[in-house]
């Protein structure tokens, strides 16, 4: 059909508009493909690592070595394997946690290179190796011994290799994990300089298939089995710690990130495609309206509705296919670096990236389908009319009159009146602009929201609360304090309701090193002998409880159920902890009067490492947080860039439609002697209000969206992050978007210059 020749001409005539549309489709399709690929691949390698690496169900620490692990395993229907770990100071500030290789529980999975063959071989976690510039084949020196790096590995219980469990972020600059042979670890233990190095021995338990106890259905069953098992360890070997897989933060961090990405992979492309649909519909409807007479003529000449429809669908489908295919390819392209980044960050195996055909297909088909349906709807609105109606041309319903009566325009000044009329006419476009800007402002402010929230949360948030430099946790309860600092008591427990793992901590009165403050910043005091009971914000939010409620839990030591009435909530966002006065702790749990398990200190003590379960260094934590926020800032900057690009494209399409539709009026105003600047003010500034409204609307939308997203992704970990956005950054976000807006307005304003005045005189008005 000759008609087809019009399509390339139409594309060329409005190329800016169509390129913008293609770009938006590209963006939607790219985010769809990329996020879905990242999520499925991450989930896939996570599951694979858990399976192949034989992740433990439980890991326990005891005072005495369990005698016969094999027979214990038989009784339990599980594999039980002991694992020694040495925290080696590789360099001054760099700790390498060296594990003994295990084969039946928490086996290291080789990501690259070879498994251990000789006692001088060592496997490293890839993020640490990358950060320290260590390659396979290089050597490292530990306790005077030389180790050859034979490969990179991932440990299924150390997917997110944080130094301490309370750490929020990994820091490969100062901490890494490694695996050596059983013989090598024994040598390391014997060579270890007692002062700095700590040695740790734990037992991993992995139930045989069929006894996998993490499914919902066997929840109760597993509780009883676990309880029996725990009692056994307690009675026979002296239980020090008990960590179930579902409470392992080094795994949950990853699950949480995957959950967050999953939520993002649904909402972001949906939002972009929605905007696409609205814009395509407006552009297409504009085209169709101009061609009412042509459509009528074609129909009168005997073309069927289907044939006309097919003609008008060619253009939108071409756009959708170009945008969809390039977006899918782009998505596949960027998914890989993202995956590489994530898998390094989390020490997950990046096997061959899986190109799920369904994801790839949907990257193209979804935009084609969505836009095809939208286009069909728009075209059919015209095509379904009888030819003789169409031949009369498009008639706008005079909706102006109704609104006229409502608002009494004629009392306004002329320019106001003109703009008011224009706004009524362009209501749809204004709405589209408001939504588009709201979305762009959400994207733009995301960066600021994250960095503000993180810095308030980590900067002041953390260092105000955690005032200590060192946190020493002893293996056994102490009674005489030989070191300076604040002593505290602590035990692990599980809430009766929902079975959350929590910590109960006994703190001295008016602790200076761990400061409990309430919402208004007031210090909360734990008076000795009082019934004070303070829970953290995380716990309060997670369990939806507050002052006056009773929290009930089973503690790990005596297995008794305890009930305590909550007296306050401390604004701590990283721990699920119940704080009570130290003396009350010892009384309640039948501990000797002045006993304690840990010590907060502002100075370094030389405590024999065999006495310590762990040592936590606050400075390490703060520096690693710093490097993490810096890293994040870069990626957020690019989101901001995309946001303004999107705003630019959306506004550009709307402006160009507006100018197009009002071409005659604009030409007329020019003939009458209006200056371009005046026309721009009259015509284009009608978007000022929707722009402002859109931006302002974006702020609560942003908080709602991220509130929900955080709730979803933090479910797994003991953390919440209060969302905070500083005024300064709102203003910056506004300024950047506003500049984008003015820029787009001025670029579009140039179109006004190009409108030919003589054209308008030749034909009848629209």
């Amino acid at each position, binding site marked *: 059909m000759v008609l087809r020749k019009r399509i390339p001409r139409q594309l060329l005539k409005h190329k800016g508009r169509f390129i913008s549309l293609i770009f938006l489709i590209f963006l939607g399709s790219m985010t769809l493909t990329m996020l879905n690929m990242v999520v499925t691949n991450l989930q896939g390698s996570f599951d694979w690592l858990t399976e192949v690496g034989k992740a433990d169900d439980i890991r326990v620490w005891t005072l005495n070595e369990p005698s016969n692990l094999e027979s214990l395993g038989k009784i339990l229907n599980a594999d039980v394997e002991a694992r020694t770990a040495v925290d080696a100071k590789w360099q001054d500030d760099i700790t390498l946690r060296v594990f003994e290789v295990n084969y039946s529980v928490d086996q290291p999975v080789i990501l690259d290179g070879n498994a251990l063959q000789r006692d001088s071989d060592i496997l490293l976690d890839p993020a640490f190796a990358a950060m320290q510039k260590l390659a396979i084949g290089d050597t490292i020196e530990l306790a005077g011994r030389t180790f050859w790096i034979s490969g990179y590995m991932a440990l299924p219980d150390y997917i997110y290799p944080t130094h301490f469990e309370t750490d929020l972020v990994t820091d490969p600059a100062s901490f890494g994990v490694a695996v050596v042979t059983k013989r090598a670890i024994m040598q390391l233990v014997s060579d270890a300089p007692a002062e700095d190095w700590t040695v740790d021995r734990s037992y991993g338990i992995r139930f045989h298939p069929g006894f996998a106890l993490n499914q919902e259905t066997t929840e109760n069953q597993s509780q009883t089995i676990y309880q029996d098992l725990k009692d056994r360890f307690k009675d026979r070997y002296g239980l020090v710690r008990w960590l179930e897989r579902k409470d392992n933060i080094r795994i949950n961090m990853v699950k949480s990130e995957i959950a967050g990405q999953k939520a993002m992979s649904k909402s972001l492309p949906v939002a972009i495609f929605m905007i696409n649909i609205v814009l395509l519909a407006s552009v297409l409807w504009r085209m169709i309206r101009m061609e009412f007479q042509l459509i009528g003529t074609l129909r009168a000449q005997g073309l069927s509705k289907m044939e006309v429809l097919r003609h008008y669908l060619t253009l939108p489908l071409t756009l959708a296919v170009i945008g969809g295919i390039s977006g899918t390819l782009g998505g596949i392209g960027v998914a890989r670096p993202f995956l590489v980044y994530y898998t390094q960050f989390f020490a997950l195996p990046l096997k061959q990236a899986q190109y799920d055909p369904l994801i790839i297909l949907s990257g193209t088909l979804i935009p084609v389908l969505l836009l095809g349906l939208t286009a069909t709807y728009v075209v059919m609105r015209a095509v379904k009319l009888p030819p003789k109606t169409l031949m009369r041309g498009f008639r*706008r319903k*005079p909706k*102006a*009159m109704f609104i006229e009566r409502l608002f009494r325009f*004629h009392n306004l000044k*002329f*320019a106001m*009146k*003109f703009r008011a*009329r224009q706004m*009524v*006419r362009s209501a749809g476009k204004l709405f589209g602009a408001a939504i588009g800007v709201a979305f762009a402002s959400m994207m733009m402010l995301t960066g600021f929201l994250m960095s503000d929230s993180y810095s308030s949360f980590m900067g002041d948030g953390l260092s105000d609360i955690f005032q200590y430099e060192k946190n020493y946790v002893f293996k056994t309860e102490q009674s005489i304090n030989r070191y300076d600092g604040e002593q505290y008591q602590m035990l692990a427990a599980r809430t009766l309701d929902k079975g959350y793992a929590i910590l109960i901590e006994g703190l001295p009165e008016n602790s200076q090193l761990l400061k409990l403050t309430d919402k208004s910043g007031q210090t909360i005091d734990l008076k000795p002998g009082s019934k004070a009971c303070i829970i953290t914000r995380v716990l309060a939010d997670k369990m939806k409880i507050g002052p006056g409620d009773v929290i009930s839990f089973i503690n790990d030591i005596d297995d008794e159920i305890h009930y305590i009435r909550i007296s306050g909530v401390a604004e701590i966002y990283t721990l699920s902890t119940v704080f009570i006065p130290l003396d009350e702790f010892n009384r309640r749990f039948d501990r000797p009067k002045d006993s304690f398990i840990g010590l907060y200190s502002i100075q370094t003590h030389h405590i024999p490492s065999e006495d310590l379960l762990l040592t936590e260094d606050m400075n390490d934590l703060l520096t690693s947080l710093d490097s993490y926020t810096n890293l994040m800032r870069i990626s957020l900057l690019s989101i901001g860039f995309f946001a303004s690009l999107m705003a630019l494209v959306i506004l550009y399409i709307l402006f160009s439609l507006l100018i197009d539709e009002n071409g*005659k*009026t604009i030409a*007329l*105003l*020019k*003939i*009458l*002697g*209006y*200056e*371009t600047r005046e026309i721009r003010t009259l015509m284009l500034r009608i978007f000022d209000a929707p722009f402002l409204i859109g931006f302002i609307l974006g702020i609560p939308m942003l908080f709602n969206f991220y509130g929900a997203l955080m709730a979803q992704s933090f479910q797994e970990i003991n953390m919440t992050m209060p969302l905070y956005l500083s005024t300064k950054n709102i203003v910056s976000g506004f300024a950047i978007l506003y500049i984008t807006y003015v820029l787009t307005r001025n670029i579009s304003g140039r179109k006004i*210059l190009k409108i030919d*005045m*003589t054209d*308008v*005189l030749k*034909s*009848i*008005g*629209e």
Partner: protein
Amino acid sequence: MLELTDVSRIYPSGESQFYALNHIDLTIPDGEFVVILGPSGSGKSTLLNLIGGIDQPDTGTILVNKVDVAKMSDRMLTRYRRHNLGFVFQFNNLIPDLTVRENIEVTAHLSSSAGKPLQLLDRVGLIDKADKFPHQLSGGEQQRVSIARAIVKRPSMLLCDEPTGALDFKSSLSVLQLLEEINQQDKTTVLIVTHNAAIAAMADRVIRMRSGEFTEITQNSVKARADEVEW
């Protein structure tokens, strides 16, 4: 005073050039009533557009009170149109979603010395239609509104391209009467482009065109009144 010297407007046409206006000379004193006649495609609108500063010539000068319109920048042209000219077109080109009164305000807004829109509407006999929208008016009424719009800012020259082209006889007559009155009472120079030879009787001067050239320029010694014109 309007003086055109050696004015051409050239469009490329394949290899050669097409002269829509071919080296035209013309002088029109202030206050004249001029009618330009000629067949379709002879260059009438082109001439009017050049005088009106919405198109620019390829050769020659167009002096309006000794200032060359052909050499003006866009900005100066805008100011020229704004302060000196009124336009009336064949298709009235009112803005459809502004009321009659607002359509006049569009130009009144441009000049501080402009008349009151309602007075103008009274003058063209449409005071009772002030708050109607253009599509609620007849073609003749619409054309009278567009004349009111053109003269509200008191231009020194009124350019009319086929002002009666889309109207029946009776409506045409009321439009012509209005133009005559403007010419005589306000001393406004009026240029009318038309197919309709009958209108020539009203003019001080009649210019006949063909293929971009003037074939004949006649000075009427006796002018007919608008209500005497008939066809």
